């Protein structure tokens, strides 16, 4: 159970981090994982598989991912700002209170933002990566607490924007993450 959760969280972290050659290269593996562990994802998988076949070589695939990642998260339209503070703090800026709170949470669990691949603490991918690490260490109580207080409120705001962007890979991955983390909650309501 912990292992599966860790792997799923990490797979989504891999997608929502800035495009990385290793992730691009192993996209099929992530798709396989979702197909297997989140059966309702099937309908969203097809488009992603087509994408993988359209860009079999890692360099082309990486460039194609950048083409979507940048306007989606980085510069340009920025259809879905990936930083939680921007949604929770009134002024819509980065490094707000939410960023400090999640940074504090990471610290209390023994994690820091690393030196080499620095990122803001409340980046969607960093939160997902953190949960992967908690799950892999079996820190279930902290995981649930972080999910409830930080991740899920953020996902409720950011995922619809990513889904709406209709960007291959990203919007499908967002939909699958939504099914996994948010829809299952609704079912239980």
């Amino acid at each position, binding site marked *: 159970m912990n292992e599966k959760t860790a792997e799923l969280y990490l797979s989504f972290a891999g997608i929502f981090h800035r495009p990385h050659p290793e992730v691009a290269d192993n996209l099929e*593996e992530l798709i396989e994982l979702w197909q297997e562990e989140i059966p309702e994802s099937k309908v969203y998988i097809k488009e992603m598989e087509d994408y993988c076949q359209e860009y079999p070589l890692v360099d082309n695939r990486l460039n194609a991912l950048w*083409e979507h990642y940048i306007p989606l998260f980085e*510069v340009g339209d*920025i259809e879905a700002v990936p930083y939680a503070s921007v949604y929770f703090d009134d002024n819509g800026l*980065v490094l707000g209170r939410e960023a400090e709170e999640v940074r504090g949470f990471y*610290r209390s669990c023994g994690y*820091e933002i690393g030196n080499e691949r620095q990122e803001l603490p409340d980046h969607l991918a960093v939160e997902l990566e953190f949960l992967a690490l908690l799950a892999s260490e079996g820190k279930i109580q902290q995981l649930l607490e972080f999910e409830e207080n930080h991740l899920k409120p953020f996902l409720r705001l950011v995922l619809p924007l990513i889904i709406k962007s209709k960007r291959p890979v990203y919007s499908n991955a967002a939909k699958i993450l939504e099914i996994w983390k948010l829809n299952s909650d609704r079912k239980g309501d």
Partner: protein
Amino acid sequence: MLTPVVIILKICENNLKKLVIFLFGGKGVNRRQFIKRALYGAGGTAVAISGFGALTKAAPKPALATATNEETTVFSSCEMCRNQCPVAVKVVDGKVSKIEGNPNDSGFGGVICARGNSGPSMLYDPQRLKKPMIRTGERGSGKYKEVSWDEAYTYIAEKVKELQQKYGGESVAFASRKGPHDWFFRAIGKGIGSPNIFSHEATCPMTRSVALHSMFGSEAIAADYGNAKYIVSVGRNWLEGIHVAQTRSIMKAIDNGAKIVVLDPRFSVTASKGEWIPIKGATDLAFVMAMANVIIADGTYDKDFIERYTSGFDKWQVEVKDKTPEWAEKETGIPKDTIIRIAREFVKHSPKAILDFGWRTGITPNDYQLRRAIMFVNMMMGNFEVPGGYYHKKYAAVLKKFPEMSSYAKTLGDIYQPAFPKPSTYRIDGTGIKGIPGQLIPEGDGAVSQIPESILTGQPYPIKGWFVHRFNPVISVTESDRIIEALKKLDLLVVCDIYMTDTAMFADVILPECSYLERYDKVFDMSGKTPKYVLRQPAVELVYPDTKPSWQIYKELAVKMGLGHYFPYEDMEEFISRQLAPAGLTLDYMKQKGVWTPEGMKPFYIRANDHTASLDDIVHRTDSKIEFYSEEVEEATKQGIPKYEQYPQPQEGEFRFVQGKVAVHTNAGTANVPVLNELMPENSLWINQESANKLGIREGEDIIISNGKYEHKGKAKVTQGIRPDTVFCYHGFGRISPGLKRAYGKGINGNKLINNVIGEVGNVCTSMSFVTVKKA
């Protein structure tokens, strides 16, 4: 590091894996290899995620161990416009909470403007550039990939080398918004032997600089507004084109009873504080010449000053002899009696009177002659080196020449750079060539509008590469579409900025600079009536960790290009300490105060107590005389004395199109800054009530503005506050870069509608285009 063999094996392994997945749908393959490896590492124990992860393992700490809520103050300087006011940055728990003026600087009085206040919202803006990027799609398509700094530098270095080999170093132009970064930025251009290095000044105050240099042999002349009793603005608008120290001085003058007269086709905020003279566009020189005519006819000019300190006045007398108020009335539309009255009021208040030499000059092709004529009238009244008039800035090199003042002079040190290669050819704009107008263009500035011309026409020789630092020619230079056409033709465009500007969106390589709140800069000299040095230092750590300061970017790029020897310093602390050491100052002192000015020194006007005091040490023309007639100008333009040139006026149904600054934005720089965008997201077109009625246009209606070649949509602001033959919009809106998400597509980009006419001394000409307006 992977060896080539390992890389080949890895490619084979990955492709084989993909092939298997493709053929068998992944069945039977160990599908979690990558995820498991990333999660658990090779040994199977939980480790921080390598490769693409951001978190690393550390000893657990209490969640809020570092939050103290204590406020600290970091003294630095603003960069929301180029005035660089000294500021006090308030920091709480490593975050900028607020910015105030630096109370250690009395000139600025601890005050900043709205733009200065908005700094934190830019610092924490999610729309800032965060990583270096290389273009992957068509120019302007917005298709980029993020790369490491090393990849970006390598790409640039290789491309520049190619251009150098094919077309010579001169084929690469460099243009920046003038500032402390230039020492570093320009070293790249000089290092590759390019003569084509430009500032933005030709789009702003360059004609004023040319005028001052031709008269005084120095551009470092300033106006003492605070002590003036009568101030005539020729289109200057201190209350919207904010310069904190100058705006405060104007307010002080008004509080002390000074009269403000404003010549402007539009009723500006400054005009609302005094007498508005709605002059016909492009006729200011006629007004100024007529003022001179009245003063000479009245015999009220300062004969002693002219005799003692100037040369060539006789030729000016001849030139304005027929420039009577009656003649000027026809040209300017201002009644002759008003001209006579203003001239006489000016005389009455002299030498505490200022006919202002302007800020964003470049209204007409011969604008530099207007600026000279303005200063002639001031000099006719001896309004120089006395309180309430003009003065030469008192930086260390000037003070040293005055024994009673030399103890206040502390000179900053230079950082030695080895000699740069001599460019093998002349500049594209003719700057520095004797016998042509280029002779007058300041070498450090150049005529930046010539860059797109040379790209498009290949004349006088082609420009193939362009480095742009914190400058946005698509919005700042006239005829935006022509600029874009030029950018699309380049072999290499490198842009260093904070935002994805309208120019950056066409770049091959984008280099993300960190903001002024996160970096050091070269200490700058802001001397005025007393010497002053100002420090910029980081108030907080980098918000986006992969952004860098320009001093580091260009040093690292230089190393990659084999030009590292032109950057002989390790870091900026060392650089600044070396600058300060000869002045007997230290970085620690500057960090504590943010600003240095000599203690106890009072404003120094050379003629304050002795109206016959020598000006030889500050006037650097022939025989140390302030020149009315200039041999140099004669040689360059055949107009040693300004001559009036009559420019066309709009025909029936046309309007002169003019632009100006607004208090809450900085030209092409701040439309996307969160707080400022909220305060003013777009502009509109000011049109006179009567003219709007004729066209059936009502307040707030959608309109189309056309100059015959380009069209722009906008909204109408119907007002009595503008001449019926003129329309106006604030500058810096109508942005075309989707990367400026808040500002994108909002308002009117005035420069789209202004033709790229290059003025006589290389200036842009902002008020020479006519437009028609209709309902959309």
